[in-house]
């Protein structure tokens, strides 16, 4: 049986604009997402900002009610059996927020231990164990406002594990953390998976998903565009080519012109100082460099180089497909 199961999940946000003439707007953040996570699996939901990762995770942890579709965690429906789901899951999100800044780390943990019904006799031992696990032992009596981003993130993880939940939802846990801190956090996440926890991790770092996840679903514009093991995803683009074209003062439609060429899979634009680099991914038998340059017309072009596609190209290709 799948531990986490999402079936055609959809979520629409309604907003309104205007003071006197109110106009309603509907934004479809998640459009029919379906996936399953098996017991003990570390599953990655990978996508750019605004792709629908956090909305999906919030529906699964019962903070948002889906507009349509169904989701179950350990067999419990996230809408009808919200409290049963909450007892069995841990939720950790990235960033600075979500902690009582004026209080020491240990007070934050004690309060959540109470909220999650950790028996009073077990609280001290459990908190000590978690402080050790996340490397905050000895710093727990300091106020959170003096913690670094990495320390806050580790405190978040300890908080999410207080009641020893079998299922963990980690929403961009390494965001804003320095490379050393992020590496340590990834080590902690890997050890949780090794301990048998079922983990759903959202991230927009391809290398992070590749290093940690058993399976990955790539989400873009609210839809899952690819799903499989990291190896499966890499295989999607290994046969193509990537051409990087350095341009100067390229008009807004330059990337679109390239996208319209046959064989072009994706075009990403990267700003590098004065230049805009167009990263064009094509099928192996697709467009030649000459055809790309012709399509650019009068655009001032600098350095042009071709290379083998990387894992990151696979991701970019998936989320920026025509």
């Amino acid at each position: 049986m799948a531990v986490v199961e999402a079936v055609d999940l959809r979520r629409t946000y309604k907003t309104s604009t205007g003071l006197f003439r109110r106009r309603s707007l509907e934004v479809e953040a998640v459009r029919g997402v379906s996936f399953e996570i098996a017991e003990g699996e570390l599953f990655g939901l990978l996508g750019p900002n605004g792709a629908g990762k956090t909305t999906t995770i919030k529906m699964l942890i019962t903070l948002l009610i889906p507009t349509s579709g169904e989701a179950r965690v350990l067999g419990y429906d996230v809408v009808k059996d919200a409290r049963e789901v909450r007892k069995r899951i841990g939720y950790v999100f990235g960033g600075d927020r979500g902690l009582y800044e004026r209080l020491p780390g240990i007070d934050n943990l004690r309060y959540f231990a109470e909220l999650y019904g950790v028996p009073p006799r077990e609280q001290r031992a459990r908190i000590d164990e978690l402080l050790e696990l996340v490397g905050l032992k000895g710093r727990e009596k300091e106020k959170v406002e003096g913690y670094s981003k990495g320390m806050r993130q580790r405190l978040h993880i300890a908080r999410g594990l207080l009641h020893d939940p079998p299922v963990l939802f980690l929403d961009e846990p390494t965001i804003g953390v320095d490379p050393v801190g992020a590496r340590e956090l990834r080590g902690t996440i890997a050890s949780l998976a090794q301990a048998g926890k079922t983990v759903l991790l959202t991230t927009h770092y391809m290398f992070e998903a590749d290093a940690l996840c058993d399976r990955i679903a790539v989400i873009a514009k609210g839809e899952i565009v690819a799903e499989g093991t990291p190896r499966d995803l890499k295989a999607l683009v290994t046969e193509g080519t990537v051409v990087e074209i350095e341009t100067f003062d390229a008009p807004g439609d330059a990337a679109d012109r390239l996208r319209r060429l046959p064989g072009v899979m994706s075009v990403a634009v990267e700003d590098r100082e004065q230049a805009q680099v167009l990263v064009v991914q094509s099928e192996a038998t697709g467009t030649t460099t000459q055809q790309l340059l012709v399509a650019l017309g009068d655009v001032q072009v600098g350095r042009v180089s071709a290379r083998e596609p990387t894992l990151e190209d696979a991701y970019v290709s998936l989320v920026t497909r025509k």
Partner: protein
Amino acid sequence: MRQALRLLGYGWALHFKILSRSAFDGFLGVLWPLFFATIAFFMFRTGGNSSALLYTSLGASVMGVWSSTSVAASSALQRERWAGMLELLAAAPVHFSLILMPITLAMSTVGIYSMTATLLWGRLLFGIQLHVQHLLLFALAIPVAILSIGMLGFLLSVTVVRYRTAWALGNALEYPVWLVCGFLVPLSLFPGWVRPISWALAPTWGIRAIREAALGGSPLPDLLVCAAIGLGYAAAGMLLVDTVLRSARSRATLSLT
């Protein structure tokens, strides 16, 4: 039941600790009731009636309790939202009223200081003597009034969960309740249509019980009505909170964006 009481107690202690850790909030909390009390004392001193001054002193002391509960509880909950805590608290597997109630109760506890400080301020600077006629009932009326006002704050805070801008409601209600509940001037001075509103508000009965106990009279009926209305607020809040929380989950108002 035991876990619920433990959670209420722990939550109250935690939120009281958060309040006590802010030097700015603490400074304002100390001075605010004294400013209001001073204005009220100057206004009523011109009449030269000593019983009117004591009447005002008691009213001003409960004004502080109401202000710290209504305004502070609404903005405290909004602070939870800004800090990203509201979602985490809503995701906990306990009844949400056990999370909200300690926040407002902690604010009401601050009101005890406000009450004591106002009475002492009146005694030291304006020579207002507090002669309590029914000491036991006076001692009972104070916690009942504070708890009932706390429960009204709890009921208000339920709306803050659902509506992102409802925290302003706490501010908006601060002064009208001072008037409508008769903290400073007798209710008999207001038009008849105001009375039913006053009767529905626990602070009206709380201040009446405190005054009757201090100045002489029969405070017990007022005390019982105050307690009953306070319990009514608690029951209404607990019943509403699930519906409100479901609506907040449906309309995505638990977070800032």
